[in-house]
Protein backbone atom coordinates (compact mmCIF):
# COMPACT_ATOMS: atom_id res chain seq x y z
CA UNK A 1 0.00 0.00 0.00
CA UNK A 2 1.30 3.47 -0.80
CA UNK A 3 2.30 5.85 1.97
CA UNK A 4 0.45 9.14 1.79
CA UNK A 5 0.09 12.26 3.83
CA UNK A 6 -3.37 13.71 4.40
CA UNK A 7 -3.16 16.16 1.49
CA UNK A 8 -2.34 13.31 -0.88
CA UNK A 9 -5.06 11.09 0.55
CA UNK A 10 -7.73 13.75 0.09
CA UNK A 11 -6.47 14.52 -3.39
CA UNK A 12 -6.64 10.81 -4.17
CA UNK A 13 -10.23 10.58 -2.92
CA UNK A 14 -11.28 13.57 -5.00
CA UNK A 15 -9.66 12.18 -8.15
CA UNK A 16 -11.18 8.76 -7.62
CA UNK A 17 -14.68 10.09 -7.06
CA UNK A 18 -14.49 12.54 -9.96
CA UNK A 19 -13.61 9.63 -12.23
CA UNK A 20 -16.32 7.41 -10.83
CA UNK A 21 -19.10 10.02 -10.81
CA UNK A 22 -19.15 12.75 -13.42
CA UNK A 23 -21.61 14.78 -11.36
CA UNK A 24 -18.88 15.64 -8.87
CA UNK A 25 -17.49 19.16 -9.33
CA UNK A 26 -15.03 21.20 -7.28
CA UNK A 27 -15.24 24.96 -6.89
CA UNK A 28 -13.45 27.53 -4.79
CA UNK A 29 -10.78 30.18 -4.60
CA UNK A 30 -7.63 29.07 -6.40
CA UNK A 31 -8.64 25.40 -6.43
CA UNK A 32 -8.07 25.15 -10.18
CA UNK A 33 -4.90 26.31 -11.86
CA UNK A 34 -3.13 26.83 -8.54
CA UNK A 35 -4.36 23.52 -7.09
CA UNK A 36 -5.37 25.09 -3.77
CA UNK A 37 -3.23 26.97 -1.27
CA UNK A 38 -2.52 23.65 0.46
CA UNK A 39 -2.25 21.79 -2.88
CA UNK A 40 -5.19 19.54 -2.00
CA UNK A 41 -6.73 19.87 -5.46
CA UNK A 42 -3.41 19.79 -7.31
CA UNK A 43 -3.58 18.20 -10.75
CA UNK A 44 -7.37 17.94 -10.86
CA UNK A 45 -7.81 21.00 -13.06
CA UNK A 46 -5.52 19.50 -15.69
CA UNK A 47 -7.21 16.13 -15.46
CA UNK A 48 -10.88 17.17 -15.37
CA UNK A 49 -10.94 20.60 -16.96
CA UNK A 50 -12.35 23.93 -15.90
CA UNK A 51 -15.95 22.78 -16.09
CA UNK A 52 -15.37 20.49 -13.13
CA UNK A 53 -12.57 22.19 -11.20
CA UNK A 54 -13.61 25.80 -11.03
CA UNK A 55 -11.74 28.88 -9.88
CA UNK A 56 -14.29 31.30 -8.47
CA UNK A 57 -14.36 34.93 -7.44
CA UNK A 58 -13.37 35.64 -3.83
CA UNK A 59 -16.81 35.11 -2.35
CA UNK A 60 -17.61 32.27 0.00
CA UNK A 61 -21.28 33.22 -0.06
CA UNK A 62 -21.25 32.99 -3.83
CA UNK A 63 -19.42 29.68 -3.79
CA UNK A 64 -21.89 28.00 -1.44
CA UNK A 65 -24.97 29.70 -2.89
CA UNK A 66 -24.06 28.63 -6.41
CA UNK A 67 -23.07 25.16 -5.21
CA UNK A 68 -26.50 24.70 -3.67
CA UNK A 69 -28.04 25.59 -7.02
CA UNK A 70 -25.77 23.09 -8.78
CA UNK A 71 -26.79 20.45 -6.25
CA UNK A 72 -30.45 21.18 -6.96
CA UNK A 73 -29.68 20.60 -10.61
CA UNK A 74 -28.28 17.19 -9.78
CA UNK A 75 -24.56 17.77 -9.56
CA UNK A 76 -22.57 16.82 -6.46
CA UNK A 77 -20.49 19.91 -5.68
CA UNK A 78 -17.52 19.65 -3.36
CA UNK A 79 -16.73 23.32 -2.72
CA UNK A 80 -13.56 24.29 -0.89
CA UNK A 81 -13.44 27.16 1.58
CA UNK A 82 -9.81 28.21 1.64
CA UNK A 83 -9.70 28.54 5.45
CA UNK A 84 -12.61 27.70 7.73
CA UNK A 85 -12.15 31.17 9.24
CA UNK A 86 -13.54 32.53 5.96
CA UNK A 87 -16.64 30.34 5.96
CA UNK A 88 -18.76 32.94 7.75
CA UNK A 89 -19.65 35.04 4.69
CA UNK A 90 -21.33 31.79 3.58
CA UNK A 91 -22.86 31.05 6.97
CA UNK A 92 -26.32 32.18 6.01
CA UNK A 93 -26.34 30.04 2.87
CA UNK A 94 -25.16 27.06 4.92
CA UNK A 95 -27.44 27.33 7.94
CA UNK A 96 -30.52 28.93 6.38
CA UNK A 97 -30.47 27.27 2.98
CA UNK A 98 -28.33 24.15 2.80
CA UNK A 99 -29.26 22.78 6.22
CA UNK A 100 -32.98 23.48 5.86
CA UNK A 101 -33.67 22.80 2.17
CA UNK A 102 -34.77 19.19 2.53
CA UNK A 103 -36.91 19.98 5.56
CA UNK A 104 -38.64 23.11 4.39
CA UNK A 105 -39.54 21.52 1.05
CA UNK A 106 -41.18 18.54 2.74
CA UNK A 107 -38.43 16.29 1.45
CA UNK A 108 -38.70 17.36 -2.18
CA UNK A 109 -35.38 19.15 -2.43
CA UNK A 110 -32.44 17.55 -0.72
CA UNK A 111 -29.40 19.76 -1.36
CA UNK A 112 -26.35 17.58 -1.26
CA UNK A 113 -22.88 18.97 -1.09
CA UNK A 114 -19.66 18.43 0.80
CA UNK A 115 -17.90 21.55 1.99
CA UNK A 116 -14.19 20.90 2.46
CA UNK A 117 -12.23 23.33 4.56
CA UNK A 118 -9.02 23.32 6.61
CA UNK A 119 -9.40 23.96 10.34
CA UNK A 120 -7.23 24.43 13.38
CA UNK A 121 -4.18 26.27 14.60
CA UNK A 122 -0.52 25.72 15.01
CA UNK A 123 0.63 27.10 11.67
CA UNK A 124 1.23 30.69 12.82
CA UNK A 125 -1.90 31.84 11.09
CA UNK A 126 -3.28 34.20 13.71
CA UNK A 127 -6.92 34.98 14.33
CA UNK A 128 -8.14 34.24 10.83
CA UNK A 129 -6.23 31.17 9.71
CA UNK A 130 -6.60 28.99 12.80
CA UNK A 131 -10.16 28.56 14.00
CA UNK A 132 -12.15 25.37 14.60
CA UNK A 133 -15.80 26.27 14.03
CA UNK A 134 -17.42 22.81 14.27
CA UNK A 135 -19.88 23.64 17.05
CA UNK A 136 -21.32 26.51 15.02
CA UNK A 137 -22.47 23.95 12.47
CA UNK A 138 -23.38 21.10 14.81
CA UNK A 139 -25.96 23.27 16.55
CA UNK A 140 -27.77 23.67 13.23
CA UNK A 141 -30.05 20.75 12.44
CA UNK A 142 -29.59 19.15 9.03
CA UNK A 143 -25.82 19.20 8.71
CA UNK A 144 -23.31 16.42 9.22
CA UNK A 145 -19.81 17.24 10.45
CA UNK A 146 -16.72 15.14 9.82
CA UNK A 147 -13.09 15.63 10.87
CA UNK A 148 -10.50 12.96 10.06
CA UNK A 149 -7.18 12.58 11.83
CA UNK A 150 -5.34 10.17 9.52
CA UNK A 151 -4.76 9.93 5.77
CA UNK A 152 -6.59 6.58 5.69
CA UNK A 153 -9.65 8.04 7.37
CA UNK A 154 -9.45 11.24 5.36
CA UNK A 155 -9.80 9.36 2.10
CA UNK A 156 -12.40 6.90 3.35
CA UNK A 157 -14.48 9.51 5.14
CA UNK A 158 -14.38 11.91 2.21
CA UNK A 159 -15.61 9.21 -0.15
CA UNK A 160 -18.35 8.30 2.33
CA UNK A 161 -19.24 11.97 2.75
CA UNK A 162 -19.58 12.56 -0.98
CA UNK A 163 -21.83 9.49 -1.32
CA UNK A 164 -23.92 10.29 1.74
CA UNK A 165 -27.31 11.84 0.91
CA UNK A 166 -26.94 14.73 3.39
CA UNK A 167 -24.83 17.88 3.35
CA UNK A 168 -21.49 17.39 5.06
CA UNK A 169 -19.00 19.85 6.50
CA UNK A 170 -15.65 18.15 6.02
CA UNK A 171 -13.08 19.75 8.30
CA UNK A 172 -9.44 19.03 7.51
CA UNK A 173 -6.92 19.48 10.35
CA UNK A 174 -4.34 21.53 8.50
CA UNK A 175 -1.68 21.28 11.19
CA UNK A 176 -1.30 17.58 10.30
CA UNK A 177 -1.98 17.93 6.55
CA UNK A 178 1.59 16.83 5.88
CA UNK A 179 2.67 15.54 9.27
CA UNK A 180 0.03 12.79 9.39
CA UNK A 181 1.33 9.99 7.16
CA UNK A 182 0.23 6.43 6.72
CA UNK A 183 -0.73 3.62 4.41
CA UNK A 184 -3.65 4.44 2.19
CA UNK A 185 -5.12 1.76 -0.09
CA UNK A 186 -5.24 2.54 -3.76
CA UNK A 187 -8.72 2.53 -5.21
CA UNK A 188 -12.12 2.67 -3.66
CA UNK A 189 -13.06 2.20 -0.01
CA UNK A 190 -15.13 4.13 2.49
CA UNK A 191 -15.02 4.72 6.21
CA UNK A 192 -18.56 4.69 7.50
CA UNK A 193 -19.88 8.00 8.85
CA UNK A 194 -20.91 8.16 12.51
CA UNK A 195 -18.47 5.45 13.55
CA UNK A 196 -15.74 6.40 15.99
CA UNK A 197 -12.46 4.52 16.31
CA UNK A 198 -10.96 3.41 19.59
CA UNK A 199 -7.32 4.07 18.74
CA UNK A 200 -5.82 3.12 22.08
CA UNK A 201 -7.35 0.92 24.73
CA UNK A 202 -7.34 1.34 28.46
CA UNK A 203 -9.64 0.88 31.42
CA UNK A 204 -9.00 4.02 33.46
CA UNK A 205 -9.90 7.15 31.53
CA UNK A 206 -11.76 7.79 28.27
CA UNK A 207 -10.31 10.53 26.09
CA UNK A 208 -12.56 11.90 23.35
CA UNK A 209 -10.68 13.75 20.62
CA UNK A 210 -10.48 14.27 16.87
CA UNK A 211 -8.42 15.93 14.15
CA UNK A 212 -5.01 17.32 15.03
CA UNK A 213 -5.70 17.09 18.77
CA UNK A 214 -5.96 13.31 18.53
CA UNK A 215 -2.17 13.20 18.39
CA UNK A 216 -1.94 15.35 21.51
CA UNK A 217 -4.41 13.05 23.25
CA UNK A 218 -2.34 10.03 22.27
CA UNK A 219 0.87 11.67 23.47
CA UNK A 220 -0.77 12.52 26.78
CA UNK A 221 -2.13 8.97 27.06
CA UNK A 222 1.40 7.66 26.56
CA UNK A 223 2.67 9.87 29.36
CA UNK A 224 -0.22 8.89 31.59
CA UNK A 225 0.67 5.25 31.14
CA UNK A 226 4.02 5.98 32.72
CA UNK A 227 2.05 7.05 35.79
CA UNK A 228 0.05 3.85 35.67
CA UNK A 229 -3.06 5.32 34.05
CA UNK A 230 -4.44 3.43 31.04
CA UNK A 231 -6.50 5.53 28.60
CA UNK A 232 -9.15 4.58 26.09
CA UNK A 233 -8.57 7.11 23.32
CA UNK A 234 -11.56 7.53 21.04
CA UNK A 235 -11.12 9.31 17.70
CA UNK A 236 -14.64 10.54 17.00
CA UNK A 237 -13.98 11.00 13.25
CA UNK A 238 -17.60 11.98 12.57
CA UNK A 239 -18.51 14.74 14.99
CA UNK A 240 -22.22 14.79 14.20
CA UNK A 241 -24.21 12.62 14.35
CA UNK A 242 -21.63 11.30 16.77
CA UNK A 243 -21.08 7.59 17.47
CA UNK A 244 -22.81 7.65 20.82
CA UNK A 245 -22.59 3.87 21.36
CA UNK A 246 -18.81 3.76 21.23
CA UNK A 247 -18.54 6.74 23.56
CA UNK A 248 -20.96 5.38 26.12
CA UNK A 249 -19.43 1.90 26.01
CA UNK A 250 -16.05 3.38 26.79
CA UNK A 251 -17.36 5.63 29.56
CA UNK A 252 -19.22 2.74 31.17
CA UNK A 253 -15.92 0.90 31.22
CA UNK A 254 -13.76 3.72 32.59
CA UNK A 255 -16.18 5.97 34.49
CA UNK A 256 -13.91 8.90 33.70
CA UNK A 257 -13.84 11.23 30.68
CA UNK A 258 -11.62 13.93 29.26
CA UNK A 259 -12.76 15.77 26.12
CA UNK A 260 -10.16 17.61 24.05
CA UNK A 261 -10.79 20.22 21.38
CA UNK A 262 -9.12 23.28 19.91
CA UNK A 263 -12.26 25.39 19.68
CA UNK A 264 -13.14 27.74 22.55
CA UNK A 265 -14.63 26.00 25.56
CA UNK A 266 -17.93 27.78 25.98
CA UNK A 267 -20.72 26.13 23.98
CA UNK A 268 -18.17 23.96 22.19
CA UNK A 269 -18.75 20.31 21.36
CA UNK A 270 -17.08 19.42 24.65
CA UNK A 271 -20.06 20.70 26.62
CA UNK A 272 -22.41 18.64 24.48
CA UNK A 273 -20.34 15.51 25.01
CA UNK A 274 -20.31 16.04 28.76
CA UNK A 275 -24.08 16.48 28.75
CA UNK A 276 -24.59 13.34 26.64
CA UNK A 277 -22.39 11.32 28.96
CA UNK A 278 -24.43 12.62 31.91
CA UNK A 279 -27.67 11.65 30.21
CA UNK A 280 -26.56 8.16 29.27
CA UNK A 281 -23.99 7.05 31.83
CA UNK A 282 -24.51 9.16 34.94
CA UNK A 283 -24.37 6.32 37.40
CA UNK A 284 -21.11 5.11 35.90
CA UNK A 285 -19.32 8.42 36.38
CA UNK A 286 -16.66 8.30 39.04
CA UNK A 287 -15.31 11.79 38.37
CA UNK A 288 -16.58 14.93 36.73
CA UNK A 289 -15.99 14.83 32.96
CA UNK A 290 -13.27 17.32 32.14
CA UNK A 291 -12.73 19.55 29.13
CA UNK A 292 -9.30 20.52 27.84
CA UNK A 293 -9.93 23.04 25.09
CA UNK A 294 -8.93 26.24 23.42
CA UNK A 295 -9.53 29.28 25.60
CA UNK A 296 -12.50 31.62 25.29
CA UNK A 297 -10.45 34.18 23.41
CA UNK A 298 -9.91 34.82 19.72
CA UNK A 299 -7.14 32.66 18.35
CA UNK A 300 -3.83 34.43 19.08
CA UNK A 301 -0.78 34.74 16.86
CA UNK A 302 2.42 34.68 18.86
CA UNK A 303 0.99 32.68 21.75
CA UNK A 304 -0.76 30.02 19.68
CA UNK A 305 1.06 27.13 21.31
CA UNK A 306 -0.12 28.41 24.68
CA UNK A 307 -3.66 28.53 23.32
CA UNK A 308 -3.80 25.02 21.94
CA UNK A 309 -4.77 22.13 24.28
CA UNK A 310 -1.51 20.28 23.75
CA UNK A 311 -0.42 17.09 25.47
CA UNK A 312 1.13 18.91 28.41
CA UNK A 313 -2.26 20.44 29.20
CA UNK A 314 -4.15 17.18 28.63
CA UNK A 315 -1.96 15.12 30.92
CA UNK A 316 -2.83 16.93 34.18
CA UNK A 317 -6.52 16.56 33.34
CA UNK A 318 -6.09 12.82 32.81
CA UNK A 319 -4.26 12.49 36.09
CA UNK A 320 -6.77 14.63 37.98
CA UNK A 321 -9.68 12.64 36.54
CA UNK A 322 -8.02 9.32 37.25
CA UNK A 323 -7.18 10.25 40.84
CA UNK A 324 -10.49 11.97 41.61
Amino acid at each position, binding site marked *: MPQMNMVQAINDALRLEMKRDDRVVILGEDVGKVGGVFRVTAGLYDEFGDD*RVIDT*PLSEGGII*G*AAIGMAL*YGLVPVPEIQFSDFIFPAYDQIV*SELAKMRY*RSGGEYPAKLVIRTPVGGGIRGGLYHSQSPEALFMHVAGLKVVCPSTPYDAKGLLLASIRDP*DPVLFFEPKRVYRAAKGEVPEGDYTVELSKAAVVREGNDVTILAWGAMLYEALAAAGEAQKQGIECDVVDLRTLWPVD*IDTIIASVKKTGRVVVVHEAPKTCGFGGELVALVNEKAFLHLEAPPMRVTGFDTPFPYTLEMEYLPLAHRILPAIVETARY
Partner: protein
Amino acid sequence: MAPADKADRARGGTTSDDLVVLLYRQMVLVRVVDERLIALHREGRIPAHTGARGEEAAILGAAAALRSQDWIFPSSHEIGAALWRGISLQSYAHKVLGNALDPGKGRELSERLGARKAKIASPSCVAGAHIAHAVGFAWGAKSRREDVVALAYFDRAATSGADFHNALNFAGVFKPPVVLFCRTTEASRASRETASASVADKAIAYGIASSSVDGGDLVAVLSTVRDAVTTAASGGGATLVEAITPRPGGADDPIARLRRALDARDLWNDAKQAELERQLDAEVMLAITEAERTIDPLVATLFDDVYAVLPWHLREQRALLEKE
Protein backbone atom coordinates in the same frame (compact mmCIF):
# COMPACT_ATOMS: atom_id res chain seq x y z
CA MET B 1 -53.62 19.96 -17.92
CA ALA B 2 -51.68 22.89 -16.49
CA PRO B 3 -52.48 26.23 -18.10
CA ALA B 4 -48.81 26.38 -19.01
CA ASP B 5 -49.15 23.18 -21.04
CA LYS B 6 -52.25 24.40 -22.80
CA ALA B 7 -50.32 27.54 -23.59
CA ASP B 8 -47.34 25.58 -24.83
CA ARG B 9 -49.58 23.84 -27.27
CA ALA B 10 -51.28 27.07 -28.37
CA ARG B 11 -48.17 29.06 -28.71
CA GLY B 12 -45.26 28.16 -30.94
CA GLY B 13 -43.32 31.24 -29.94
CA THR B 14 -46.04 33.73 -30.75
CA THR B 15 -48.43 35.67 -28.58
CA SER B 16 -51.78 34.40 -29.77
CA ASP B 17 -55.07 35.77 -28.56
CA ASP B 18 -55.71 32.40 -26.96
CA LEU B 19 -52.60 32.69 -24.89
CA VAL B 20 -53.39 36.22 -23.78
CA VAL B 21 -56.90 35.26 -22.75
CA LEU B 22 -55.57 32.23 -20.91
CA LEU B 23 -53.12 34.43 -19.05
CA TYR B 24 -55.82 37.00 -18.36
CA ARG B 25 -57.91 34.28 -16.70
CA GLN B 26 -54.92 33.30 -14.59
CA MET B 27 -54.37 36.89 -13.55
CA VAL B 28 -57.96 37.11 -12.43
CA LEU B 29 -57.58 33.81 -10.60
CA VAL B 30 -54.59 35.12 -8.69
CA ARG B 31 -56.40 38.30 -7.79
CA VAL B 32 -59.44 36.37 -6.59
CA VAL B 33 -57.23 34.10 -4.52
CA ASP B 34 -55.43 37.06 -2.97
CA GLU B 35 -58.58 38.94 -2.12
CA ARG B 36 -60.34 35.91 -0.76
CA LEU B 37 -57.39 34.86 1.39
CA ILE B 38 -56.92 38.35 2.78
CA ALA B 39 -60.61 38.35 3.75
CA LEU B 40 -60.36 34.87 5.28
CA HIS B 41 -57.37 35.98 7.31
CA ARG B 42 -59.39 38.89 8.66
CA GLU B 43 -61.98 36.36 9.75
CA GLY B 44 -59.19 34.51 11.53
CA ARG B 45 -59.61 31.39 9.42
CA ILE B 46 -56.18 31.34 7.81
CA PRO B 47 -52.73 32.82 8.51
CA ALA B 48 -51.72 36.24 7.18
CA HIS B 49 -51.66 36.61 3.41
CA THR B 50 -49.85 39.37 1.54
CA GLY B 51 -50.53 38.46 -2.07
CA ALA B 52 -49.26 40.02 -5.25
CA ARG B 53 -51.92 42.51 -6.27
CA GLY B 54 -50.59 44.70 -9.05
CA GLU B 55 -47.84 42.24 -9.85
CA GLU B 56 -49.97 39.68 -11.72
CA ALA B 57 -48.85 40.72 -15.20
CA ALA B 58 -45.19 40.64 -14.20
CA ILE B 59 -45.43 37.28 -12.49
CA LEU B 60 -47.51 35.57 -15.14
CA GLY B 61 -45.81 37.22 -18.09
CA ALA B 62 -42.44 35.96 -16.85
CA ALA B 63 -43.77 32.48 -16.06
CA ALA B 64 -45.43 32.18 -19.46
CA ALA B 65 -42.23 33.19 -21.24
CA LEU B 66 -40.49 30.08 -19.97
CA ARG B 67 -40.40 26.79 -21.82
CA SER B 68 -41.64 23.60 -20.21
CA GLN B 69 -38.09 22.47 -19.38
CA ASP B 70 -37.24 25.74 -17.65
CA TRP B 71 -37.18 26.20 -13.88
CA ILE B 72 -38.58 28.85 -11.60
CA PHE B 73 -36.87 30.09 -8.42
CA PRO B 74 -39.56 31.99 -6.55
CA SER B 75 -39.07 34.50 -3.75
CA SER B 76 -42.53 34.88 -2.27
CA HIS B 77 -46.02 35.72 -3.42
CA GLU B 78 -45.45 34.08 -6.83
CA ILE B 79 -48.37 31.70 -6.29
CA GLY B 80 -49.54 32.76 -9.76
CA ALA B 81 -46.55 31.05 -11.31
CA ALA B 82 -47.31 27.84 -9.42
CA LEU B 83 -50.95 27.80 -10.48
CA TRP B 84 -49.85 28.49 -14.04
CA ARG B 85 -47.50 25.52 -13.85
CA GLY B 86 -50.40 23.29 -12.82
CA ILE B 87 -50.37 23.27 -9.03
CA SER B 88 -54.02 22.81 -8.09
CA LEU B 89 -55.95 25.28 -6.00
CA GLN B 90 -56.70 22.42 -3.64
CA SER B 91 -53.05 21.61 -3.15
CA TYR B 92 -52.33 25.27 -2.50
CA ALA B 93 -55.22 25.48 -0.04
CA HIS B 94 -53.72 22.59 1.93
CA LYS B 95 -50.45 24.52 2.02
CA VAL B 96 -52.23 27.65 3.25
CA LEU B 97 -53.53 25.64 6.19
CA GLY B 98 -50.23 23.75 6.59
CA ASN B 99 -52.17 20.55 7.09
CA ALA B 100 -51.42 16.86 6.61
CA LEU B 101 -52.07 17.10 2.85
CA ASP B 102 -49.77 20.07 2.34
CA PRO B 103 -47.02 18.65 0.12
CA GLY B 104 -44.65 20.85 2.14
CA LYS B 105 -45.75 18.97 5.29
CA GLY B 106 -46.73 22.13 7.16
CA ARG B 107 -43.20 23.33 7.45
CA GLU B 108 -43.26 26.73 5.80
CA LEU B 109 -45.34 29.87 5.53
CA SER B 110 -48.27 29.73 3.17
CA GLU B 111 -46.84 31.96 0.46
CA ARG B 112 -43.58 30.05 0.18
CA LEU B 113 -44.55 27.42 -2.39
CA GLY B 114 -42.12 25.12 -4.16
CA ALA B 115 -43.05 22.04 -6.17
CA ARG B 116 -40.73 19.71 -7.99
CA LYS B 117 -43.38 18.45 -10.40
CA ALA B 118 -43.97 22.04 -11.52
CA LYS B 119 -40.22 22.73 -11.69
CA ILE B 120 -40.49 25.34 -8.98
CA ALA B 121 -37.62 25.43 -6.49
CA SER B 122 -38.03 25.74 -2.74
CA PRO B 123 -38.34 29.39 -1.73
CA SER B 124 -36.59 30.86 1.28
CA CYS B 125 -37.83 33.56 3.62
CA VAL B 126 -34.34 35.04 3.50
CA ALA B 127 -34.71 37.77 0.91
CA GLY B 128 -32.59 37.05 -2.16
CA ALA B 129 -30.99 33.80 -0.97
CA HIS B 130 -32.49 31.89 -3.90
CA ILE B 131 -31.00 34.13 -6.58
CA ALA B 132 -27.66 32.41 -6.05
CA HIS B 133 -29.40 29.05 -6.33
CA ALA B 134 -30.92 29.96 -9.68
CA VAL B 135 -27.49 30.94 -10.96
CA GLY B 136 -25.92 27.72 -9.69
CA PHE B 137 -28.76 25.64 -11.11
CA ALA B 138 -28.44 27.21 -14.54
CA TRP B 139 -24.68 26.80 -14.33
CA GLY B 140 -25.31 23.10 -13.64
CA ALA B 141 -27.43 22.86 -16.79
CA LYS B 142 -24.72 24.61 -18.76
CA SER B 143 -22.01 22.30 -17.51
CA ARG B 144 -24.18 19.27 -18.35
CA ARG B 145 -24.86 20.82 -21.76
CA GLU B 146 -28.61 20.56 -21.25
CA ASP B 147 -31.03 23.14 -22.60
CA VAL B 148 -32.60 24.40 -19.38
CA VAL B 149 -33.03 28.00 -18.32
CA ALA B 150 -33.63 29.14 -14.73
CA LEU B 151 -35.62 32.24 -13.81
CA ALA B 152 -35.39 33.85 -10.38
CA TYR B 153 -38.10 36.19 -9.17
CA PHE B 154 -37.16 38.77 -6.58
CA ASP B 155 -38.00 42.29 -5.61
CA ARG B 156 -36.08 45.53 -5.31
CA ALA B 157 -35.33 45.11 -1.63
CA ALA B 158 -33.52 41.85 -2.38
CA THR B 159 -30.97 43.72 -4.50
CA SER B 160 -29.48 45.13 -1.29
CA GLY B 161 -28.45 41.71 -0.02
CA ALA B 162 -25.23 39.80 -0.44
CA ASP B 163 -26.87 37.00 -2.40
CA PHE B 164 -27.93 39.34 -5.19
CA HIS B 165 -24.35 40.58 -5.47
CA ASN B 166 -22.86 37.09 -5.41
CA ALA B 167 -25.40 35.71 -7.84
CA LEU B 168 -24.97 38.47 -10.40
CA ASN B 169 -21.21 38.44 -10.10
CA PHE B 170 -21.05 34.70 -10.66
CA ALA B 171 -23.58 35.04 -13.48
CA GLY B 172 -21.33 37.58 -15.19
CA VAL B 173 -18.22 35.46 -14.84
CA PHE B 174 -19.67 32.02 -15.65
CA LYS B 175 -22.47 32.99 -18.05
CA PRO B 176 -25.12 30.47 -16.98
CA PRO B 177 -28.50 30.45 -18.77
CA VAL B 178 -30.42 32.43 -16.19
CA VAL B 179 -32.99 35.21 -16.13
CA LEU B 180 -32.88 37.47 -13.09
CA PHE B 181 -36.33 38.95 -12.87
CA CYS B 182 -36.86 41.87 -10.51
CA ARG B 183 -40.38 42.94 -9.66
CA THR B 184 -39.99 46.58 -8.66
CA THR B 185 -43.23 47.91 -7.28
CA GLU B 186 -43.99 51.55 -7.92
CA ALA B 187 -44.34 51.97 -4.13
CA SER B 188 -40.95 50.45 -3.35
CA ARG B 189 -39.12 52.90 -5.61
CA ALA B 190 -39.58 55.54 -2.95
CA SER B 191 -37.82 53.40 -0.34
CA ARG B 192 -34.16 53.85 0.49
CA GLU B 193 -32.82 50.62 -0.95
CA THR B 194 -30.35 52.03 -3.41
CA ALA B 195 -29.17 55.24 -5.02
CA SER B 196 -28.77 53.66 -8.42
CA ALA B 197 -30.96 55.12 -11.14
CA SER B 198 -32.65 51.74 -11.63
CA VAL B 199 -32.24 48.11 -10.74
CA ALA B 200 -31.53 47.34 -14.38
CA ASP B 201 -28.47 49.61 -14.20
CA LYS B 202 -26.93 47.31 -11.64
CA ALA B 203 -26.20 44.82 -14.42
CA ILE B 204 -23.32 47.04 -15.54
CA ALA B 205 -21.43 46.24 -12.35
CA TYR B 206 -21.46 42.58 -13.32
CA GLY B 207 -20.99 42.77 -17.06
CA ILE B 208 -24.36 41.20 -17.81
CA ALA B 209 -27.23 42.22 -20.06
CA SER B 210 -30.29 43.99 -18.75
CA SER B 211 -33.65 45.28 -19.79
CA SER B 212 -36.48 47.28 -18.31
CA VAL B 213 -40.10 46.62 -18.93
CA ASP B 214 -43.48 47.99 -17.90
CA GLY B 215 -44.55 45.36 -15.38
CA GLY B 216 -48.17 46.32 -15.78
CA ASP B 217 -48.15 45.23 -19.42
CA LEU B 218 -48.52 41.47 -19.71
CA VAL B 219 -47.57 41.25 -23.37
CA ALA B 220 -44.51 43.42 -22.90
CA VAL B 221 -43.29 41.32 -19.99
CA LEU B 222 -43.92 38.14 -21.95
CA SER B 223 -41.90 39.36 -24.88
CA THR B 224 -39.05 40.84 -22.83
CA VAL B 225 -38.59 37.68 -20.82
CA ARG B 226 -38.86 35.53 -23.95
CA ASP B 227 -35.93 37.47 -25.34
CA ALA B 228 -33.97 36.90 -22.16
CA VAL B 229 -34.77 33.19 -22.29
CA THR B 230 -33.64 33.02 -25.90
CA THR B 231 -30.40 34.79 -25.01
CA ALA B 232 -29.82 32.41 -22.12
CA ALA B 233 -30.66 29.29 -24.12
CA SER B 234 -28.35 30.31 -26.95
CA GLY B 235 -25.27 30.74 -24.76
CA GLY B 236 -25.59 34.48 -24.20
CA GLY B 237 -25.63 34.20 -20.41
CA ALA B 238 -27.68 36.06 -17.89
CA THR B 239 -30.10 38.95 -18.29
CA LEU B 240 -31.29 41.15 -15.46
CA VAL B 241 -34.88 42.15 -16.24
CA GLU B 242 -36.54 44.86 -14.23
CA ALA B 243 -40.31 44.97 -14.39
CA ILE B 244 -41.77 48.05 -12.78
CA THR B 245 -45.20 47.16 -11.47
CA PRO B 246 -48.04 49.60 -10.88
CA ARG B 247 -50.04 50.19 -7.72
CA PRO B 248 -53.04 47.86 -7.83
CA GLY B 249 -56.57 49.14 -8.15
CA GLY B 250 -55.86 52.33 -10.09
CA ALA B 251 -56.09 53.07 -13.78
CA ASP B 252 -52.75 51.30 -14.31
CA ASP B 253 -53.91 48.12 -12.61
CA PRO B 254 -52.55 45.37 -14.84
CA ILE B 255 -55.77 43.39 -14.82
CA ALA B 256 -57.93 46.41 -15.62
CA ARG B 257 -55.52 47.40 -18.35
CA LEU B 258 -55.50 44.04 -20.04
CA ARG B 259 -59.25 43.81 -19.61
CA ARG B 260 -59.70 47.06 -21.53
CA ALA B 261 -57.55 45.76 -24.34
CA LEU B 262 -59.41 42.46 -24.52
CA ASP B 263 -62.81 44.17 -24.34
CA ALA B 264 -61.83 46.48 -27.17
CA ARG B 265 -61.09 43.49 -29.35
CA ASP B 266 -64.20 41.63 -28.24
CA LEU B 267 -62.14 38.91 -26.61
CA TRP B 268 -63.73 39.52 -23.23
CA ASN B 269 -66.82 41.12 -21.72
CA ASP B 270 -68.71 41.81 -18.50
CA ALA B 271 -70.64 38.60 -18.60
CA LYS B 272 -67.51 36.49 -18.96
CA GLN B 273 -65.90 38.42 -16.16
CA ALA B 274 -68.79 37.98 -13.78
CA GLU B 275 -69.01 34.30 -14.59
CA LEU B 276 -65.26 33.79 -14.15
CA GLU B 277 -65.12 35.59 -10.83
CA ARG B 278 -68.12 33.66 -9.51
CA GLN B 279 -66.61 30.38 -10.56
CA LEU B 280 -63.13 31.10 -9.23
CA ASP B 281 -64.42 32.39 -5.95
CA ALA B 282 -66.43 29.22 -5.47
CA GLU B 283 -63.39 27.09 -6.30
CA VAL B 284 -61.23 28.96 -3.81
CA MET B 285 -63.81 28.67 -1.07
CA LEU B 286 -64.31 24.99 -1.75
CA ALA B 287 -60.59 24.33 -1.62
CA ILE B 288 -60.12 26.23 1.62
CA THR B 289 -63.13 24.58 3.25
CA GLU B 290 -61.77 21.19 2.29
CA ALA B 291 -58.35 22.13 3.65
CA GLU B 292 -59.85 23.33 6.91
CA ARG B 293 -61.42 19.91 7.33
CA THR B 294 -58.07 18.16 6.97
CA ILE B 295 -56.06 17.21 10.05
CA ASP B 296 -52.67 18.63 10.98
CA PRO B 297 -49.51 16.73 10.03
CA LEU B 298 -48.81 13.85 12.40
CA VAL B 299 -46.51 14.77 15.24
CA ALA B 300 -43.95 12.15 14.22
CA THR B 301 -43.43 13.95 10.90
CA LEU B 302 -41.72 16.75 12.80
CA PHE B 303 -38.52 14.71 12.61
CA ASP B 304 -38.64 13.64 8.97
CA ASP B 305 -36.48 15.24 6.28
CA VAL B 306 -33.91 16.74 8.61
CA TYR B 307 -31.68 14.04 7.18
CA ALA B 308 -32.40 11.39 4.58
CA VAL B 309 -32.49 8.77 7.34
CA LEU B 310 -33.40 9.43 10.98
CA PRO B 311 -30.20 9.38 13.08
CA TRP B 312 -30.11 8.09 16.67
CA HIS B 313 -30.66 11.42 18.35
CA LEU B 314 -33.77 12.21 16.34
CA ARG B 315 -35.11 8.71 16.94
CA GLU B 316 -34.70 9.38 20.65
CA GLN B 317 -36.31 12.78 20.43
CA ARG B 318 -39.23 11.41 18.43
CA ALA B 319 -39.75 8.63 20.94
CA LEU B 320 -39.74 11.19 23.75
CA LEU B 321 -42.34 13.35 22.06
CA GLU B 322 -44.56 10.41 21.22
CA LYS B 323 -44.39 9.17 24.81
CA GLU B 324 -45.77 12.44 26.17
